[in-house]
């Protein structure tokens, strides 16, 4: 009997160490694999520019609306790559989006269902106006003295964030069903780690260019590469 308990203790200890070693990463992913995604777009970047007529001290004199951002080697930035089928516990880290310089930072925020902190570090009025259908859409003022607001997004959905005071401000909150996701960097690359081994459909989403999917097999300790070429 003691031996059995001892064995359980040992397993528990090992498991505990493993979790600690992985830090806040998705739990239950020990021995998982990595997905490296490369997202490209052959077309030209889509950027709109607007003359700013107010709050120029905070917002600058020219606002830039980046609808499609293309980096080196046609890499597409701000694409959300996710593995909706992979099961795992959500990260315990709280997600935050900041309104800074009259921009949503980051431009695309990815989170699992739960709470989102909306910061206003601009010291001017913004209003958080979301366009959502699965989650209740909100339109709440955030004056300069209201530094942080918390909102709950309980259902997976791509939610557009806008500010009516500064119409060029556009951001996205991607509420994902599973904690395995990444947002592409300026070169169109992202990495999803600790994915439990298995066959998955990997999904990419971009605010302007839409969705694509590809099947990928993840093996323990190995890196699976997947490439997407987005089209208009």
């Amino acid at each position, binding site marked *: 009997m003691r031996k059995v308990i001892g064995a359980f203790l040992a397993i528990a200890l090992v498991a505990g160490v493993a979790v600690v070693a992985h830090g806040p990463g998705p739990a239950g992913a020990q021995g998982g694999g990595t997905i490296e995604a490369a997202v490209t777009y052959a077309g030209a970047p889509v950027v709109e520019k607007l003359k700013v007529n107010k709050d120029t001290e905070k917002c600058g004199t020219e606002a830039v609306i980046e609808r499609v951002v293309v980096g080196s080697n046609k890499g597409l930035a701000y694409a959300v790559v996710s593995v909706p089928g992979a099961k795992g516990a959500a990260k315990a880290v709280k997600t935050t989006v900041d309104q800074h310089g009259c921009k949503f930072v980051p431009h695309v925020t990815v989170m699992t269902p739960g709470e989102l902190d909306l910061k206003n570090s601009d010291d001017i*009025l913004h209003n958080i106006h979301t366009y959502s259908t699965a989650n209740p859409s909100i*339109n709440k003022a955030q004056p300069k003295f209201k530094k942080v607001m918390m909102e709950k997004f309980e259902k997976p959905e791509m939610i557009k964030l806008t500010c009516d005071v500064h119409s060029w401000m556009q951001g996205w909150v991607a509420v994902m069903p599973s904690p395995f996701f990444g947002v592409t960097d300026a070169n169109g690359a992202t990495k999803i780690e600790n994915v439990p081994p298995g066959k998955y459909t990997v999904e990419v989403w971009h605010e302007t260019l839409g969705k694509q999917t590809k099947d990928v097999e993840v093996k323990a300790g190995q890196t699976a590469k997947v490439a997407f070429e987005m089209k208009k």
Partner: protein
Amino acid sequence: MIPALVGGRSVGRAGPRAQGGLPGSACCSTNRDDHPLQTGATLPTRIPAGPPGPAAPPALALGVDRARLAGARRILSLRGIAIAGLVVSSLFAVPGFVGAQAGDAAAGKTVYERKCAGCHGEKGDGKGPAAELLAPKPRDFTAGLYKIRSTANKVPTDQDLFRIITDGMPGTSMPPWRVLGEKDRWNLVAYVKTFAADKFKEAPKKLELPKEVASSTESIKRGKEMFEAIECHKCHGTEGRADGPSRAELKDEWGHPIPPANLTKRWTFRGGPGRTEIATRLANGVLGTPMPAFLDSVEKPEDIWHLTNFILSLGPESPHYATLIQVMSTSGPIADDPNADLWKNIAPANVPMMGQVIVDPRNFNPAIDLVAVRAAYNDKEIAFHLTWDDPTQSADEPAKKLAADAIALQFPPQVTAGPERPYFLMGDASDAVYLVRWENGKGVTEATANGPTKIVPIQGGEASAKAVYANGQYRLVIKRPLASKDTARPTFAPAVFMPVAFQAWDGGAGESGTKMSLTSWYYLRLEEPQSNRRFVIPPVVAVLTLAVMLLVVRVANRRA
């Protein structure tokens, strides 16, 4: 639910239109926190889905009055006459109280197709045949998104929908439908909800406003501070005239441009001009529009009321439109500065402006809805002081596709006895009119018109003008001699009813030519000059009377 009763009563005092809560619930929810009728009484059709409660379900099916009776009976048996008295008084304390009724959607459909589909469309998508001419656009019921609601969540109460149907939406094409019977209006509520049935699955949640703060100098001052701190001016403008820097960027959730409210014109507020209505819009925003909710975004909850008191201080509840324009007689010189004291001492005659919809191109949605007119004259000249709101100052700049802001006064060239006047729309082929027009960037011109497309300038201008523009408002003084040198221009004489009409253009809103707002003929009347004789004759009469009396007394004394 006791707070609901208290809230309902305090709200109710502001008038029946402010009845924001769930009136049906007030009667039945006084004694129980867990009563299922807290939302059900306004939405009886949803009751069966709710948790079973002590109220008798059959009463609900038969309508709210029965439910109220049943509730009252139960209270009588449970709590005694004292509570029942309180309940009854709470019901009747609200003037014009209208209990929510269960409408019949099928019957509502018939009324809808007859009265509503022209704008809102047969499918309720806001795309009726008239929709393209309207701004703001008719409501798309399929979205289930309602601007005006008294609730904390997105679902309006039946009462909210009923009120909008009954009272209409000021400043829009939605008229009050009191002409329909009450039953028809409740049926419409039921039918309109069917366009977005899934949105009405959630029960309305009553909005709890902070404790009301009465208006006072301090409250208005605090409201102004908060107005600046939360930056209302970004959209509504520094003085509330809808001229804020974000104005041009604003769009509703359907992508249509939407102007901010002009806070100095409360009578155009979509949700009504009352205290509770304004506080509610501030607290929970206007759904589907850029106006956000401020309930959790003011420094202290009661700031909602300070803001309300400040907004109420910005303008009158009603424009009190004028029927006659009095021209004040003055002996001194007339100031041509629009901000001079002379003009502050004259009460304005508010003249409503309408869109020109007779001649193409027409103006179905005029930007200028009111001109405030003040006028004065002396022995040499007559001056008109005109004030109107225009959120976008613009001059004639074809490169930017901008037209000039302008305003015109129209008179018959000669005043004739009898009711005959030229055609009000700038005259016609047989009868001309005289126009004095001021245009931003160009100044004042005079013209003879035989219709809106036959305008001939008059050489040798007699008129002069001076204008100022600030915070979304023009103030203009136009002067001309009292007597005219020729027959193309009128001579103004005291105590004569002189026809006058007005035309205005907001160039920033794309108005020019026949795209204008205008009035039909009004009358102005020059006050008769007040001579010094009124100070001389009465004392003389008094002295003479006294002398006669003394004489009579003396004669009588002698005889005696």
